[in-house]
């Protein structure tokens, strides 16, 4: 029951997010949607994933979005309806997907397989990752470092640069 309630909430808040004209409002609605997803993960028996979801998506990435939106400070765009030839193909594909999805559910009743529950404690998960993939993790950390240094070199102001070069 909570599951369907949360699911409905997620769909509703996401729908609100993509229809808002004001960017900040859209971001706030998206935040609700992420919290809902986190609750879903918790219900499915993955508390670690739920916590990570809140911390990374709702916490870090959304705040970043908010910052970017506030910095760019775009004016709300006026209401524009997309021309027919732009949304018609998308609508057709969407309808096909819905038809296929409905057919899958209706044509083969009773063949649903419950996924085996793979519950892993944070400790087991960490042990697995660091025993089998720690080279990959080191490469990822180096990749993030490179991205950081690169972003800094690219982001430094143009004006200051020129004066220093001439000096």
């Amino acid at each position, binding site marked *: 029951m909570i599951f369907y309630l949360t699911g409905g909430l997620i769909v509703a808040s996401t729908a609100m997010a993509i229809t808002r004209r004001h960017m900040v409002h859209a971001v706030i609605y998206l935040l609700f949607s992420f919290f809902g997803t986190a609750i879903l993960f918790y219900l499915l028996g993955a508390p670690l994933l739920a916590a990570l979801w809140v911390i990374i998506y709702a916490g870090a990435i959304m705040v970043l979005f908010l910052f970017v939106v506030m910095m760019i400070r775009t004016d709300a765009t006026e209401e524009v309806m997309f021309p027919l030839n732009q949304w018609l193909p998308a609508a057709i594909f969407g309808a096909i997907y819905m038809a296929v999805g409905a057919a899958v559910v209706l044509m083969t009743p009773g063949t649903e397989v419950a996924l085996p529950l793979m519950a892993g404690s944070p400790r087991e998960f960490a042990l697995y990752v660091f025993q089998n993939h720690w080279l990959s993790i080191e490469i990822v950390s180096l990749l993030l470092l490179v991205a950081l240094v*690169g972003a800094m070199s690219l982001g430094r102001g143009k004006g200051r640069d020129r004066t220093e070069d001439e000096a």
Partner: protein
Amino acid sequence: MKWMLFGPETYIFLVAFFFLILSMWRGPHSEKDHVLALALSGLGVVISLACLGAEGLLFAGAYRLDLFSQVFKVALSFGLFLIVCLCANVEEIKRRYRLEFYFFLFVCTLAMMLLVSAQHLLTILLALELSSYSLYILVTLRRDEDMGLEAGIKYFLTGIFASSIMIFGMALLYGATGAVYLQDLAQVLPEVMGTPAAVIGLLLTFGGFFFKLAVYPFHFWVADTYQGAPDQVTAYIATASKVAVIAVVIKLIAAVDQNSTYLIHVLAVLSIASMTLGNLAAMVQKDMKRLLAYSTIAHSGYVLIGILSGGTAGYASAVFYALALLVMKFTVFLVVVVLSPRGKNLEREELAGLHGRSPLLALALMVSIFSLAGIPPTIGFMGKFYVFMGAMDKGLFVLVLIAMINVVVSLYYYLLIIKAAYLGHSWETPPAVHLPQPMRWLTGALIATMMVAGFYPTPLIRLSEAVARSLM
């Protein structure tokens, strides 16, 4: 001690970190930094040579050391050393970024070393990404900001597109086979080779590598990136990064290719398309770096012939060709870097009268261009000869014929360069080129290497065969 096996990688990693900390510590100091980088990268070559015999599996089997990976590591650290030799006068790179420049250069080399040893699909992907991201940033460091940024953004956008295609391919491959280690993949793949998921997955996975190698349908970034990047970075992309990608493609094909004719046909089509397109487009280029970019595309086509011939002979010829490319491409870029006017790219016409300005550079240009064109007695001729022999043994006569026609076509623009350097007259006589003494030795050594390996390639061929055997 297992850690000794990981020696070259650890060393390059530490050097990269050293430069990062140095860049926070103090401002750039061009000459001191260059000598430092030169010494450290030289030591890197020595360490990789010392680890040549290393063998074993590390990191839960995700990392394999054998003759194949170790020889390529030596080639990569040697390539890095050569590029650092060119950085004595990095006018093109903004002064304040010169320490970061070395940091990215070393990290990129580290990523490529990891790439040639990686056995796990995830590790391969991440190592490739690490090297790509370092290159994206290196390309944008050009002093002329707009030019560098344009090239960097073009490279970045096409690069992430190729990466996402590759990730999708790997996911399909994993879905079809359930294997993530290359050796497992080799065992499982023949059974599922008929299924669409496996075939599409394999093709998309290779798509990502072909992007890096600049093979035909993924070649469009090459010319713009080469043109916009600083000369030293272009030289690095054209030499060291190509060697690494050739190595990983050889490794992947050797793992998945169980005499599947389907894959060979695809590779043959790609090879013909890249050779033809590269050579035809190179003809009309005026900018030397653009010209070399298209010639790179053509050379990727030749390498693919070696790879698709398969077997020890085919892979050995591809390895030989990769090592030859490293030397001859680098020599051309050495001339380009030395002659480039400040802040601009070198045009072909600007080579006019080079013979009078610096006979040594003109000779280096002639030998390396002859080598790229495949004229005996140079290392490039032996490379092409060896690749075509391998293909003939497999009965790929038509492919070799097309490749030969392409070689003749490419002679046109290669000879135009030499004509400009030796017979061209410029209206105003530019001053003689001043080469410092160490650069003269380096140029002489490169010329000698190309000629000696052309006359007496046996040791290099033996080495390539041993490398290819360690792969099988």
